[in-house]
């Protein structure tokens, strides 16, 4: 079973390759026009001059000695390299590989959009509330007789028609959250990070991201030096631990909001990842996110009621 799942993309390649060889044979047989189009777009046909010079030679060949083609683009590299930096000097320390299924995904705007809508719905507080006529404080007594006064019919003083009465069809507290399959949401997380990686806006810090000083001026200087600040579209700093473990960082960033914001991995969501000019993330935080959001890649059996 496992071999079947692995061979799926490979089957695609072999299929493509066989198509390609078929088309080559077809060219060799016709030998008249260059109009024949290969089914694959990436392969290059053998030089036509050779074919026209030696048509018979090609006609008789049963097997084409085609060299092994490079890996087709749909598969691409299995791992990609990221640079780990020191903090705060941002010296590149070493290269670190990550699977391309985690940080090198194609940018899918539709998936990012769905994730953001999902998050937006989920974060709506939905606390708007009005009183219906029955909830209005006061007596429910009929104000005047139904008939005979020459005036309009009127029931209780809580009628929506009267001033101080209830609200007809008014808002009531409710849950606005919508649903999104977990696998899609997890794909959105990795797509967001991959987008950052592809744009060169993902800075990974090896170790702790902590300032030497809690002053916002220090933060502003640091941001200006690295080109992270207000001028360069602000930055999101992501820490893997709670706020108390990075007191200077959080204290400084509280006063340097125009240059960026700092969040813990528990607080951040897909929209945050896409908002600022770049994401500066502790390696531990990045790996936590990647590990948490890979449900579409790993097989896990979730038992109801257990995490």
């Amino acid at each position, binding site marked *: 079973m496992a071999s079947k799942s692995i061979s799926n993309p490979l089957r695609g390649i072999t299929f493509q390759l066989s198509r390609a060889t078929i088309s080559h044979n077809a060219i060799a047989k016709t030998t008249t026009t260059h109009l024949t189009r290969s089914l694959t777009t990436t392969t290059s046909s053998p030089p036509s001059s050779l074919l026209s010079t030696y048509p018979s030679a090609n006609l008789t060949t049963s097997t084409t000695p085609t060299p092994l083609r490079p890996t087709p683009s749909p598969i691409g590299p299995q791992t990609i390299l990221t640079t780990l930096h020191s903090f705060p000097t941002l*010296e590149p320390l070493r290269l670190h590989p990550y699977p391309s299924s985690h940080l090198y995904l194609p940018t899918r705007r539709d998936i990012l959009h769905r994730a953001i809508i999902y998050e937006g719905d989920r974060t709506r507080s939905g606390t708007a509330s009005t009183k219906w006529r029955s909830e209005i404080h006061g007596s429910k007594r009929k104000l005047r007789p139904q008939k005979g006064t020459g005036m309009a019919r009127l029931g209780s003083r809580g009628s929506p028609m009267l001033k101080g009465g209830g609200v007809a069809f008014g808002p009531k507290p409710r849950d606005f959250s919508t649903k999104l399959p977990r696998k899609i949401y997890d794909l959105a997380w990795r797509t967001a990070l991959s987008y950052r990686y592809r744009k060169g806006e993902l800075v990974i810090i090896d170790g702790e991201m902590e300032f030497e000083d809690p*002053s916002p001026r*220090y933060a502003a200087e640091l941001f200006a*030096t690295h080109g992270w600040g207000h001028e360069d579209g602000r930055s999101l700093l992501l820490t893997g631990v709670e706020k108390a473990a990075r007191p200077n960082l959080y204290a400084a960033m509280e006063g340097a909001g125009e240059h960026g914001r700092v969040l813990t991995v528990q607080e951040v969501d897909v929209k945050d990842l896409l908002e600022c000019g770049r994401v500066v993330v502790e390696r531990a935080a990045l790996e936590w996110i990647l590990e948490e959001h890979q449900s579409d890649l790993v097989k896990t059996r979730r038992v109801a009621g257990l995490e």
Partner: protein
Amino acid sequence: MRRIRPSQQSIDSLSLSTRHAHSRLSSPLCYACQFHSSALAKSRHPSSLPVAAFSTSSARLHRGTGGKEPFTEKLRKKIWGTDDVPGRVDPYSHDSPMRVTAEERRELAEQGRKRAKEERRLARGEESFSADELTEVTAGAQELAKKGRSTARRVVEENEWWESLGKRKEYEPAHTWDGLERVGGKAWVDEFKDWKRGRVVFEQGYLPLTKITDSTELKRSLHRALVEVFTLQQAGLDMTIASVPGEIQARPGWMDRVKIGPSNDNASAAVIFQDPAHKSELLDSLIRRFEQQDDPERSLEERVATEEDYENGAAEELYEEVAAEASEAEALKDLAHESQQSIAELREDLGAVREAMTARGLNMTAEEPNLASEKSRKGDETTASPSDVEANQQKKSTKKQEDSWAKDWKTISLEDPNVKFAVVKRVMQLTGHRIPDIVIQECKTVGRLFDRISERPKPKKLIEAIQPSAKFKELANVKIYNRRVTPVDKEKEVGRWKVIEYALRERGLPVVGHE
């Protein structure tokens, strides 16, 4: 506070008091303008300030209120809780013992002069002086002692102040700034940079603050990085020691003449030094820089020196620990030494070859046999006549490019992640450009890396994007502005703006925007 009625507090009293205070002034000006240079200095004395005339201190108030107890006095009584209030109402008033009277001052000044005269005389060697003078001096000294040492010191200081004032009378205003003391400026700012409420200042990260944008300079930086990294690789050293954090050393002049190109197997690069001494020099400087940054030797000595007080055993243990740390650096040194030896051997070989070649009437530059692109040309050279070779060399000298880059330099492989990282890190350090991960990931060859780092950054404004193109310059009906063309600009263009502005001002209306 009590308000002083105008009738009691006439401006005349002010004028009188100030006139009295500045009676020595040659030209009393109007009341407001009495503050010219020397007068201003004198009037700093609080009691002589015109403001003092308006003082609400009890002495003045007492005069004005005709024997009635002033408010401040009542307040002081309340504060002290007794009718017999100690201290003075105004400790700085004229009659306060805190002050020295004018007579006393004169007296003291005279004494100072006498003392100075005495000193001069002593300096001249005259020890004898008249009895009168002696008594005078001793009397003055006794008087001073009576007043207490602190008072004396203060009085002397004040004397000096007055004397300095006298000197300052010869003040002449400067008409040019030549020779004047300078305050402020960039140097001053740098000097006082630490004055930032005692906090930590972040000044520089790993990268230099200025980025190199010139394409030629970028190429030279890339060349330098490649030469350094591949030389280290061939010497079997850690390639990242080229890019340890620290000050960037100046580029050696011979670096332009170091040729680099892909190696035979295309997996690495071949570096050809014109003079093999340059190779050892380069390795030497790189290793020295690395040691300076880490400095395990120095720390070893220091730490052992400081631990001398400890027991012998402990000190030995410590020494061993530190030595283990330093062993890595030593290993590096050994490697460097080995490489130098091999270089020396190579040099000898080359010398022998060169001699043989000169014997055959050929000129040869130091070339390594494993350079792929050079192979064919080298074969030509050996068969070519000497004059052709000379012509070739002249061409070489005219083109620096050819000196530093072999033909297929763009195909030098960066597939090895260690090499790639070392090169990229050094390029970052030399150029100031941060190379993003995606570029590092996608650059398989040096040529691709160069293309990516020399890419023009995306323009931030439209004008930056369209200005280089000559397309718009030819069009007569198109003008390019570097900002939005406002209605004011349009009015200015037809010369109507001055009229509009005048009309607006005449009516008292805001010229631009609203108030």
